[in-house]
């Protein structure tokens, strides 16, 4: 029913060549890139707002010190090179010279220190936590930055991407009220494109940064990000040639096969390796009978995830095997079996303490696919004899209900950020289970053994030691089924085949279109 992804290999080949290497085909300069953006970003100031759309658009403007390939290995960008001390506590970055912000001001180590230590520590939703590992920062000269960590922090080298650590121009922000700085409306970064115009509700226009520090880049003259709020209309926009790139999630999954089969159309699910969106259902372990592991196992085996993948996700993505996504570091493949097995599920249910209770399913209010998914799960449950009911909500209501732990099972998907210490442990640590947040240990999973292992693994300096620790963690957690893991979501980027290189890093379209070029026919 579903076609294989045709262009994965091509994309991979390009990536292996590296951003600065020469291309097989000779890139052509010029042209306009039309991209869909949905929803309209609230702001383009990536240091303050880090939601998906902002990140995607502002990724052309802001940059960080490195870029990451599909295996999450770091490569130089604003930093030319770096060293890590033996004890894993000192990181020294050597910055590229001759880089300027869009307004012409040179980019220096002072900007890095200001960004990391002042601006992002205060304004960024995650950076505050990461910077707790940093004891101090030094800028011995204009092109050197040194981080002194309190103790080794395994994932540290993984945080220098534009969405996590965007470089903010110090000269515009220092000493101002960051949130209300007028400069937020005309974002200035070091990236390949410059902000030109934003017609709210309609489009955002970027133009080429002529002074970009990488020679010959970027190739295209301008980018339009089109705001089209209706998924069907976005598909039409692609068909009628108004837009050329449909980033993951732009069109409804149901529409993907049709659009994919159009002429001159390529598709890739690459570019999500860093975020590795993993979907699961929180199980409220404080609610009876969900505290019974047999009930949870029965529910787990009841889920026909293959059907969901094929019918709802166009066969994209992978069936999750546990709490760590397969593209994330330290993923263990051989965890206990949680596959679809309704007979086993019925048997488990019969042995369990389940007694006809109605399970409240809180769906994720992110569009049709998720609604359908909740409906499908409800049917899966009913087929093994679990009564269930879908609780309606919108985004705000979902947040509130999950934060207040007012559900039995709740859909969610979260980014892994490349490393279990960044993206996984936060949702399983016993001391991170306080109500009030929808992204911590919402299920209230309490396991002192895994807690201890998580703590230790985060600060291990040795790679293999970490791998072993995370394997143990994964085995224990999968056996307990505190959550019902669904899919490693595959968000396909659809684009015209003559648009070259839209995806070439682990961040995909979020990482700026510096290497994109358009082949003229």
């Amino acid at each position, binding site marked *: 029913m579903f076609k294989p992804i045709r262009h994965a290999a091509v994309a991979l080949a390009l990536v292996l060549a590296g951003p600065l290497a020469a291309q097989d085909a000779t890139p052509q300069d010029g042209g306009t890139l039309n991209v869909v953006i949905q929803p309209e970003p609230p702001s383009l100031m990536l240091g303050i707002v880090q939601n998906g759309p902002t990140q995607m658009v502002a990724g052309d403007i802001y940059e960080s010190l490195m870029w990451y390939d599909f295996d999450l290995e770091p490569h130089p960008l604003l930093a030319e090179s770096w060293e890590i001390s033996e004890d894993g506590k000192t990181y020294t970055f050597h910055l590229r010279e001759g880089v300027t912000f869009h307004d012409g001001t040179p980019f220096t180590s002072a900007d890095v220190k200001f960004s990391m230590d002042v601006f992002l520590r205060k304004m960024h939703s995650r950076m505050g936590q990461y910077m707790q590992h940093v004891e101090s920062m030094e800028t011995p000269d204009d092109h050197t930055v040194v981080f002194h960590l309190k103790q080794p922090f395994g994932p540290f080298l993984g945080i220098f991407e534009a969405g996590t650590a965007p470089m903010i121009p110090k000269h515009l922000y220092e000493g101002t009220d960051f949130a209300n700085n007028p400069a937020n409306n005309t974002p200035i970064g070091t990236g390949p494109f410059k902000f030109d115009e934003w017609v709210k509700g309609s489009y955002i226009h970027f133009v080429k940064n002529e002074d970009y520090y990488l020679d010959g880049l970027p190739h295209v003259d301008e980018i339009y990000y089109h705001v089209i709020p209706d*998924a069907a209309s976005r*598909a039409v926009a692609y068909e009628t040639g108004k837009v050329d790139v449909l980033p993951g999630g732009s069109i409804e999954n149901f529409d993907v096969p049709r659009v994919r089969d159009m002429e001159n159309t390529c598709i890739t699910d690459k570019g999500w390796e860093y975020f590795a969106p993993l979907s699961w259902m929180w199980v409220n372990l404080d609610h009876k009978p969900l505290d019974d592991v047999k009930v949870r196992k029965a529910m787990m085996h009841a889920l026909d995830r293959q059907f969901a993948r094929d019918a709802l996700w166009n066969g994209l993505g992978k069936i999750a095997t546990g709490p760590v996504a397969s593209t994330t570091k330290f993923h263990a493949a051989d965890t206990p079996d949680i596959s679809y097995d309704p007979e086993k599920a019925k048997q488990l249910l019969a042995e369990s303490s389940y007694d006809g209770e109605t399970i409240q399913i809180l769906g994720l209010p992110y569009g049709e696919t998720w609604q359908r998914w909740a409906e499908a799960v409800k049917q899966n449950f009913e087929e093994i004899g679990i009564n269930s009911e879908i609780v*309606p909500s919108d985004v705000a209501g979902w947040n509130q209900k999950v934060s207040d732990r007012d559900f039995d099972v709740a859909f969610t998907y979260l980014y892994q950020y490349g490393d279990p210490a960044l993206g996984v442990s936060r949702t399983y640590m016993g001391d991170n289970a306080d109500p009030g947040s929808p992204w911590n240990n919402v299920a209230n999973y309490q396991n002192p053994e895994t807690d201890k292992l998580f703590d230790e693994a985060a600060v291990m300096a040795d790679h293999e030691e970490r791998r072993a620790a995370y394997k143990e963690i994964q085995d224990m957690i999968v056996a307990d089924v505190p959550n019902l893991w669904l899919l490693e979501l595959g968000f396909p980027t659809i684009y015209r085949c003559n648009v070259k290189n839209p995806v070439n890093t682990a961040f995909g379209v979020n990482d700026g279109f510096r290497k994109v070029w358009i082949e003229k026919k």
Partner: protein
Amino acid sequence: MKDFWKRFRYNRGAVIGLVILALVILTAILAPVVFPQSPWKMVQRPFLPPFTQDGLPLGTDALGRDVLSGLAHGAYVSLLVGLVSTIVALAIGVPVGAMAGYFAGRTDDALMRFTEFFQTIPSFALAIVLLAIFQPSLTFVIIAIAIVSWPPVARLVRGEVLSLRTREFVEAATLSGLGNTQIILRHILPNALPPIIVLASLMVAQAILLESSLSFLGLGDPNIMSWGYMIGAARTVIRTAWWLSFLPGMAILLTVLALNLIGEGLNDALNPRLTRKSE
């Protein structure tokens, strides 16, 4: 009553409407018998076109669910929402309008300001906000629809009561020593009934439309298969499976059309001179 039927039957459209509505009601009643399985059950592969497989005459939707079964069960929901929300709206609007019209003066002023207030907020937007607050379960969908649709009732009833209040038979009732409540209930409201009935039939139609619009936007009860939901869910696949949007739309169209035809018939039969007043 005999006259009523005679005049009603004279209106061909109204009879057609009545037949359609009867079919819809029948469908709603028989749905659980003919389609005992849940309409949510995934019975076949997704996107089966209509008339391609026995037993699934209208094909399947995005999850392989029986479209015909969905339409049948949806009839029940549409009628239920239309009817109950109209009753609730009448339960708010009739007393408000009756009191405003009968007591006049300050009471009238206060009640009408209140009504006006509700009319100043765009009703569809208000319904959306209400559902955002309550979160859309069937009960709250009905309540939200009722809340946005009572003001016209109040205005109509007020107008009727205002004109009936000065009629001589009401004055005679006052002189006969009847209390206000008795006068309103026994003398005024029965005479205001024809236009209220006509309005109510149109309100049922409007409520069905409103419910489907809300469901279309994803503000319906997710556990209930309704026509609006079906269109909303099929909207994204309109290009590959246009019939999934088309069929429930036709169902809504026919039902609402039937109710409007009946409303017109009632109008002709009950109150030939109402046309001007009805909004």
